[in-house]
């Protein structure tokens, strides 16, 4: 019985002494100081610069069967690029048995529900061709 007490007490005293010494060694280290610091996750915002400009020559038919060349400047954005819609990520906190942990409940355990942006309804309606001659 006493031997259990002695062994246990020795282990506890040893652990406390070694822990204290080791802690004093490591507490001034930068890695230790930064270890539990909460880091803010910032996502860089990437802006697309659309600088492509097309200069086209569009031929416009004129009634008197002469073609007039008009220089028009049309940006590519109007034709190809869809309007930029910011995707808002909503992080929904849901229960999982994996959360039953002493560790940090960090973002990788959180299910991400991304709200998809509603695509703008295409305003291209079928062109009605009015044939006045008919």
């Amino acid at each position, binding site marked *: 019985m006493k031997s259990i*007490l002695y062994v246990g007490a020795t282990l506890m005293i040893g652990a406390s002494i070694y822990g204290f010494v*080791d802690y004093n060694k490591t507490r001034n280290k930068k890695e230790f100081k930064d270890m539990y610091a909460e880091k803010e996750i910032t996502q860089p915002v990437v802006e697309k610069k659309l600088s492509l400009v097309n200069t086209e020559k569009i031929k416009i038919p004129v009634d008197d069967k002469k073609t007039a060349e008009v220089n028009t400047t049309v940006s590519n954005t109007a034709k190809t690029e869809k309007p930029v819609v910011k995707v808002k990520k909503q992080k929904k906190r849901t229960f999982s048995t994996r959360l*039953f942990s002493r560790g940090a409940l960090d973002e990788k355990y959180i299910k991400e529900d991304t709200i998809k942006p509603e695509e703008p309804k295409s305003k291209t309606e079928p062109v009605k061709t009015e044939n006045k001659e008919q």
Partner: protein
Amino acid sequence: MQNTRILTLQKSVKVLFQMLFWAPVAGFSLLLIYNTLPYFSFNKDFSFIQERNFLFQSSFYNTCFYIHIAAGSLCIGAALIQFSRYILKKSKAIHRFSGKIYVFVVLFLGAPTGLFMSFFAKGSFWERSLFMFMAGWWFITTLYGLTTIHKRNIIAHKVWMMRSYSMAMTAVTFRVYHIVFYLMGWGHLENYELSLWISVIGNMLFAEWIIYRQSKNYLRSFAT
């Protein structure tokens, strides 16, 4: 003499309350053990390890961590059957065997490694002190539980073992509070610290309340 129907009702209510207490305790304890098992792949891809990456570079801390989690799971698993009156009546050998495992694991593995790791625990000076207190109190209560049963003092043995088990169960209750506060949208560090304090103080108070209730019943039994 009371009506037998009333007595049966009282008994069934008592059993119901016991079930309401023990079912979540057993469930969460088993879940804790289940969630601890993947750590023994010795993979470092766990948030707990990644967060303490610097500490895990030390082989001594590494060893202490794996001993601590193995000891924790073992003693929580062993303690589950210790409070069963049915097992105690049917076979004292099982109670003694699992009790020996519990005591050995706490005194020689769980508490010393926990004490060492508490110096590097997350939180402020007070949280580290709380971890140290937990390790010390866990050790002392278990030791008293052992010495009292050697002196054949069963009531004192029960009392000290309840206190010891309440310390072991802080691992479980901490996780419960941690999840609840997390789902409430609390920040990580404040959630961690509050869960820790509530789990330790709450478990101690709960154990004392159970002891008080049982001792009241025990004293009342002399009066009748």
